[in-house]
């Protein structure tokens, strides 16, 4: 039992009672004592169930939840610091920070005067719905408009785990290769927005061509928007803030958002 909200998600979200609902069809095999069970169920079913529950929490409080992903050092926390400063007095923001160790990032966010919960995953390379569920009960959800979940810096593993967010945003910094969307198609395909970060460095990063990044993104078969930001030396947050405002005011079909990897679940 979840102590804070009275929900039924336990810390060990097991499969126990639900597997009967998978239309399990047993067929006696050739051997006398053998039985083959056709299952067709997502391996992430347990995570996805907790993710849906998280989303219900967010929706019940009218909080827009955004999962922010990128490789390490792409500038997720810097973008959040600048965003919080820019939206101060307009929107009530909180942040869940995921890192393997340290609460350095949460401390940076708290220094901006907003609530932050640090999840340290130890050796785990991604956040999952259960970790986010624990963290969200440490936040004053009723008093929030916008929750950022800053995932562990990693372009591979976070893509597979729905956290209950409404939107996925992936940062691609101009100090990386502009072919990242071609190298990591799963995460970029799952993104609702791709943010080019550190564009104030484009002048010295001659190898990075934003047009090549856009072409690699377009090849993933979706019209995912790509915008430019700079959070530090010559701040440029206009397109990002405009996108955020639009999403904050968008009517949201409650709990209807598909999991990160759409249609991965059985029958999808």
């Amino acid at each position, binding site marked *: 039992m979840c102590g804070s909200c009275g929900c039924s998600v336990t810390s060990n979200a*097991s*499969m*126990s009672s639900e*597997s*009967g609902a998978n239309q*399990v069809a*047993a067929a006696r*095999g050739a051997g006398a*004592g*053998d*039985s*083959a*069970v*056709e*299952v*067709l*169920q*997502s*391996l*992430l*079913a*347990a*995570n996805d169930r907790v993710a849906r529950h998280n989303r219900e929490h967010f929706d019940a409080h009218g909080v827009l939840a955004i999962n922010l992903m990128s490789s390490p050092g792409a500038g997720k926390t810097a973008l959040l610091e600048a965003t919080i400063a820019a939206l101060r007095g307009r929107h009530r923001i909180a942040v869940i920070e995921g890192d393997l160790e340290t609460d350095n990032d949460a401390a940076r966010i708290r220094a901006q005067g907003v609530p932050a919960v640090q999840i340290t995953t130890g050796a*785990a*390379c*991604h956040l*999952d719905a259960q970790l986010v569920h624990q963290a969200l009960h440490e936040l004053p959800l009723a008093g929030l408009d916008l929750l950022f979940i800053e995932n562990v810096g990693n372009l*591979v*593993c976070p*893509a*597979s*785990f729905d956290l209950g967010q409404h939107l996925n945003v992936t940062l691609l910094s101009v100090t990386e290769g502009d072919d990242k*969307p*071609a*190298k990591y*198609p*799963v*995460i970029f*395909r799952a993104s609702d927005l791709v943010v080019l970060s550190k564009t104030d460095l484009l002048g010295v990063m001659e190898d990075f061509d934003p047009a090549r990044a856009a072409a*690699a993104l*377009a*090849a*993933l*078969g*979706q*019209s995912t928007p790509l915008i430019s930001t700079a959070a530090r030396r010559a701040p440029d947050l206009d397109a990002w803030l405009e996108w955020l405002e639009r999403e904050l005011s968008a009517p949201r079909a409650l709990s209807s958002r598909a999991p990160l*990897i*759409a*249609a*991965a*679940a*059985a029958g999808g």
Partner: protein
Amino acid sequence: MHELSICQALLSQVTAIACERGAEAIERIVLEVGPLSGVDAALLARAFEIARAASPAAGAALSIETPPVTISCESCGARSQTAPNRLLCDACGGYRTRIIAGNELNLRRVELRMAEASTMGRPAETAA
């Protein structure tokens, strides 16, 4: 290496199925893991070797099917098999495509070794 997390989720699913049916052991597990699932089939198989120890699947064989990435074009309707990072229509080059295979991450089938004549766990199935 999130394949180990996926493996643990797999083991809790198959263990639940085996317990529910009063099976003695799990003999074989069949998965579908598409290239766009974000999970590497070979790494998953290696993680399984480690994760299955001391579980009811300790002696189970694991088969992983990897359906190729297949897309269908929303503009011209053509179907094509393609690379995971080039999800454009082969026929017309259109980008409005839908993935119809290749992003699966499913437990497909479990083969169980049953206890003699369903003696344990649950009542014997009523004859049809």
